[in-house]
């Protein structure tokens, strides 16, 4: 059933779907509602890294070298997980300077060198053509295999169909059309192609799904899961060898492969295109830094299982391992799955070809062709010819400017590259899928010293970059390209065996006797040696021009400036506005020129808009393409559409540059930037230079300007830092102030409360004293009663004063503590003895449950006594009126000594349990408790004997005797000795006051311990 027509139809349908998606995305982009400005789409588009090499070749490589297929994916994972900052820097620089291709980047960094840009382009084209042929080969082979179903074949058996019948050719042409349609619709200053990106992201999904599909089928359908598969695999010793890190590939090869792929994931033209040029928002990079490695992980999960399954099913020599992915479903009779797999592979190949050719087209047009044409033009002009320019430049004059020419060049390039790829495939593509790809990797790796050096090494110079790249490329060509051509028969094989002219030392595959390495490692060693060596030595030995200094600074410091900072201006000169306008007219067409000027003015008007550079940097999705007019928000002012008198008014308002005025620096930079979008930075610089009388900046001046800029930055950073510190200090001060005020308030409260408390007993004392004085003939019982009151209140007053002083001393730390070893049982018994009166007077009972000799605790014995007496007094006061009973229990639990004082009184309500520990607070009425004497109900109080008071006095009415300070003082004492004091109670069930003390030998929390005799001064 899988006839040619079926397969062709399905493929065509799939490509049709791609077209539709791309078209839809472009439409949305034009309408301003982009579908690709999402970090997910960005990460998926990065997956264009996985081509049919991944799809078919990984399995092939896994079948022969086991996990040796991994380094190719390890590299990108490392690059993105660890080095995504590098990518961000590249993106930021590119955005600032409107750099739209790899060649442009190199050229811009090294003094706008057109020569360097051209060299990069050539290396890119030569390096990538084999890779393209790889994809076409995959398409062709898999098509044929699928066609031969159900008969399986190895690739070796596949002959080459005649050109006319070769699907690969048709696919290639179709892809060229696609690339032209969606990659060269118009000139976009940002060089973004939203439709293409959408299609590529979609293809990433398709190939992932297809690969997972076949993986799942093989692992769980044909076998019983991972375990089953690997068990069967381990049974065969050859297969078992695949599971280990076989040394057959050598660790050196592993390392080089990883390095290569680390570089390639950024430096391949298609990767640069999707990662840098098509990037919508540099913040997407952060998410891509884990999404993309994740994608690679997922798509590689089934590689080894499929390889093992294939080896098990087919044995090592019948079917080409590269095609296991296809062969396995076919062997099981799964036609539909096989077709899906084919589409997946098609998807992988087509994505690669589309993006690669578009990227190359941009580079060729901007960095190779146009500079040549423009130089021809300007040279002629400089020779004194009238401004009309030469015949070269007349092409493209009119509303579209030179844009038409640029687009034409790109389209031709696309077709040419695709055909070159096809040609290489037909003529020389005999090696297995993998090596061709690695050859391309090695080629683009030659860019690494110049690009990475340009980002991080100030000393890198143009001459150095040229030398390095030329040298590296030459070595690459000699060690990799020459042998493969020789093997294909285009060069004599004696070249490989004996070296050129018979000089064995110069054999391409073992230069200078370095043998034993696989070709790729060998090539890399030598090419990197030459490349880096030349780059470094030549850079160190040449002097840089001021322009290069300027570029270097901008590039290297790109991340230190905020994302929207303009580059430091390093240009001085004079240009007439008219000249600039004419430049724009010529190269962007009259429409484009008008819009470009409009944009410039839109940023200069009286309305506070961000300055032009910010405007340019801000427009991430809205491309300010001078040639096309998107319907997105524009802040430009279209002068020609203003009514006449308004125009003059507008002129005054907006400071329109008049034609014979000298252009402001801003305008010149704007023009240059706008032109760069259309023709590349190098050419733009040339064009602008041709109308401008530049005053060359000396190196000193450049340095000075840069210094100032960096000083300003440094100052502003310092300022920010100081301001932050100031804020922090202010906040601290405010907090401290609040605390102080709070303390002050508390102190005021305390003072006023104490005053009140002291005055209350005084009132009774005075009143009754005066009454007794004024009424000498009072009856004796009455007199006696009143005198008793006076005495009691005096005692109360004394107690109060003592307790206040005590509390104050304890809190301020000036109290004396004599911590020693105290026998707890003994002291409890002593306290009980002293407090007996409290109980007998009321008719209540006191029980002790203490051991014969108690736990030894570290405490001040007097203070412990004070606390116990307080608690006992409370217990006595509040125990049940008729059958009062209190129990004191001593035990050791949880590593501390614990004393519980329980009374069978009315208990303490939950909401009162905190209140009673507050100073001068006494619990509110407990229901049903009527204390002796007085009409007021009593609340639980803290009254009790003070330490110096000796024996406890009688409580005359609970509240009247209470001071409200006993419990707070007790708690303070216990806590200072390292324990806790709390109450457990429920209304109606009595109350238990408990406290803990540390056992002797465990000193209480650090600071409290005082040697006997020393006065305490504690915090």
């Amino acid at each position: 059933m899988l006839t040619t027509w079926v397969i062709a139809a399905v493929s065509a349908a799939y490509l049709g779907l791609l077209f539709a998606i791309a078209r839809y995305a472009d439409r949305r982009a034009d309408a301003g509602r982009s579908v690709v400005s999402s970090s997910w789409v960005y990460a998926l588009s990065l997956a264009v890294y996985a081509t049919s090499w991944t799809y078919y070749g990984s399995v092939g490589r896994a079948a022969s070298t086991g996990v040796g297929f991994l380094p190719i994916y390890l590299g990108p994972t490392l690059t993105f997980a660890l080095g995504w900052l590098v990518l961000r820097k590249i993106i930021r620089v590119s955005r600032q300077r409107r750099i739209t291709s790899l060649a442009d980047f190199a050229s811009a960094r090294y003094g706008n060198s057109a020569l360097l840009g051209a060299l990069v382009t050539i290396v890119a084209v030569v390096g990538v053509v084999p890779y393209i042929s790889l994809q076409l080969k995959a398409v062709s082979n898999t098509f044929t295999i699928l066609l031969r179903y159900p008969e399986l074949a190895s690739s070796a058996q596949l002959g080459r169909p005649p050109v006319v019948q070769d699907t690969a050719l048709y696919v290639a042409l179709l892809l060229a059309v696609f690339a032209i349609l969606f990659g060269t619709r118009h000139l976009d200053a940002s060089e973004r192609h939203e439709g293409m990106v959408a299609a590529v992201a979609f293809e990433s999904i398709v190939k992932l799904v297809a690969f997972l599909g076949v993986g799942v089928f093989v692992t769980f359908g044909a076998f019983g899961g991972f375990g089953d598969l690997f068990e069967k695999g381990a049974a065969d010793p050859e297969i078992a060898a695949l599971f280990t890190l076989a040394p057959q590939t050598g660790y050196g090869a592993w390392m080089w492969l990883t390095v290569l792929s680390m570089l390639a994931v950024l430096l391949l033209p298609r990767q640069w295109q999707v990662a840098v040029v098509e990037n919508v928002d540099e913040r997407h990079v952060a998410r891509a830094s884990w999404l993309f490695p994740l994608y690679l992980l997922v798509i590689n999960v089934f590689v080894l299982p499929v390889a093992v399954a294939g080896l098990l099913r087919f044995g090592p020599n019948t079917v080409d391992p590269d095609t296991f992915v296809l062969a396995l479903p076919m062997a099981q009779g799964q036609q539909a799955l096989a077709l899906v797999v084919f589409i997946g592979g098609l998807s992988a190949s087509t994505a690669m070809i589309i993006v690669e050719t578009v990227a190359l087209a941009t580079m060729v047009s901007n960095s190779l062709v146009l500079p040549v044409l423009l130089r021809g033009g300007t040279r002629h002009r400089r020779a004194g010819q009238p401004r009309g320019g030469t015949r070269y430049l007349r092409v493209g004059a009119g509303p579209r400017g030179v844009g038409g020419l640029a687009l034409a060049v790109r389209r031709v390039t696309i077709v040419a590259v695709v055909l070159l790829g096809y040609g290489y495939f037909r003529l020389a593509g005999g090696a297995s899928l993998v090596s061709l790809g690695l050859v391309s990797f090695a080629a683009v790796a030659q860019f690494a010293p110049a690009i990475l050096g340009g980002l991080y090494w100030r000393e890198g110079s143009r001459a150095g970059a040229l030398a390095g790249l030329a040298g590296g490329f030459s070595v690459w060509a000699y060690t990799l390209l020459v042998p493969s051509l020789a093997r294909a028969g285009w060069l004599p094989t004696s070249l490989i065996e004996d070296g050129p002219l018979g000089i064995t030392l110069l054999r391409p595959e073992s230069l200078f006797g370095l043998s034993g390495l696989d070709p790729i490692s060998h090539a890399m060693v030598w090419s990197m040696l030459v490349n880096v060596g030349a780059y470094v030595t030549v850079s160190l030995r040449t002097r840089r021009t001021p322009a290069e200094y300027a570029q270097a600074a901008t590039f290297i410091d790109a991340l230190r400036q905020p994302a929207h900072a303009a580059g430091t201006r390093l240009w001085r000169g004079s240009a007439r506005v008219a000249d600039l306008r004419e430049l724009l007219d010529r190269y962007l067409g009259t429409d484009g020129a008008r819009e470009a000027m409009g944009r410039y003015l839109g940023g200069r008007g009286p309305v506070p808009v961000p300055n032009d550079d910010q405007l340019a940097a801000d427009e991430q999705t809205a491309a300010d393409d001078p040639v096309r007019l998107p319907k997105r928000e524009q802040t430009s002012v279209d002068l020609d559409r203003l009514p006449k008198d308004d125009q003059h008014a507008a002129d005054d308002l907006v400071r329109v540059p008049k034609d014979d005025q000298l252009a402001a620096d801003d305008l010149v930079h704007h023009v240059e930037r706008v032109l760069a979008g259309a023709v590349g930075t190098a050419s733009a610089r040339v064009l602008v230079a041709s109308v401008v009388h530049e005053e060359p900046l000396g190196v000193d001046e450049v340095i000075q300007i840069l210094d100032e800029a960096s000083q300003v930055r440094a100052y502003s950073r310092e300022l920010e830092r100081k301001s932050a510190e100031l804020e922090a200090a202010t906040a601290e001060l405010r907090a401290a102030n609040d605390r102080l005020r709070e303390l002050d308030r508390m102190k005021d409260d305390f003072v006023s409360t104490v005053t009140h408390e002291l005055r209350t007993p005084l009132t009774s004392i005075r009143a009754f004293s005066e009454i007794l004085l004024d009424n000498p003939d009072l009856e004796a019982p009455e007199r006696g009663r009143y005198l008793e009151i006076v005495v009691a209140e005096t005692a109360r007053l004394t107690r109060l004063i003592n307790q206040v002083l005590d509390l104050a001393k304890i809190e301020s730390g000036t109290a004396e503590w004599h911590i020693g070893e105290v026998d707890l049982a003994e002291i409890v018994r002593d306290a009980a003895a002293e407090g007996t009166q409290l109980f007998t007077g009321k008719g209540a009972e006191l029980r002790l449950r203490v051991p014969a000799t108690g736990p030894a605790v570290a405490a001040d014995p007097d203070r412990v006594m004070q606390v116990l007496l307080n608690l006992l007094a409370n217990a006595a006061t509040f125990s049940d009126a008729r059958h009062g009973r209190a129990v004191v229990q001593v035990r050791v639990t949880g590593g501390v000594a614990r004393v519980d004082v329980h009374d069978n009184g009315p208990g303490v309500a939950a909401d009162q349990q905190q209140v009673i520990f507050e100073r001068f607070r006494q619990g509110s009425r407990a229901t049903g408790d009527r204390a002796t004497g007085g009409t007021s109900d009593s609340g639980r109080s803290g009254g009790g004997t003070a330490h110096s008071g000796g024996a406890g006095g009688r409580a005359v009415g609970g509240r009247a005797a209470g001071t409200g300070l006993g419990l707070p003082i007790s708690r303070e004492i216990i806590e200072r000795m390292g324990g806790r004091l709390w109450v457990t109670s429920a209304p109606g069930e009595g109350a238990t006051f408990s406290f803990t003390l540390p056992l002797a030998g465990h000193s209480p929390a650090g600071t409290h311990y005082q040697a006997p005799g020393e006065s305490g001064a504690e915090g």
Partner: protein
Amino acid sequence: MARRVLIVDDEPNIVASLEFLMGQQGYDTLVVDDGDEVLAAVERFRPDLILLDVMLPRRDGFEVCQQLRAGGHDTVKILMLTAKGRESEAAKGLAVGADAYVTKPFSTRELVARVASLLAGGVEGVEGP
């Protein structure tokens, strides 16, 4: 007819002294020790003068005074007693409608004199002990 004096204070000993003093002058007295019960007591007892302590459980003397005045008891004289001696307290007391204000400890003679004066219809300001 004997004048009636309502004593509002929760300290039993102070209450005892006030009872004696007022009793000695021939006034009828009633004691209330809770701010919430004052209003009801006033309705029942219809005193001519109230000795009102500021520090009461649950509701303080200022609130009670305000409540009384708002409740239409304008004619009864209110003499506030407190242990806090600040100027602001005195002003506050007068502001909520007390007729006089005495700080504790007070002089018995003075207190008696002030009560008599108020009952006789005099208007007084604040004096300290």
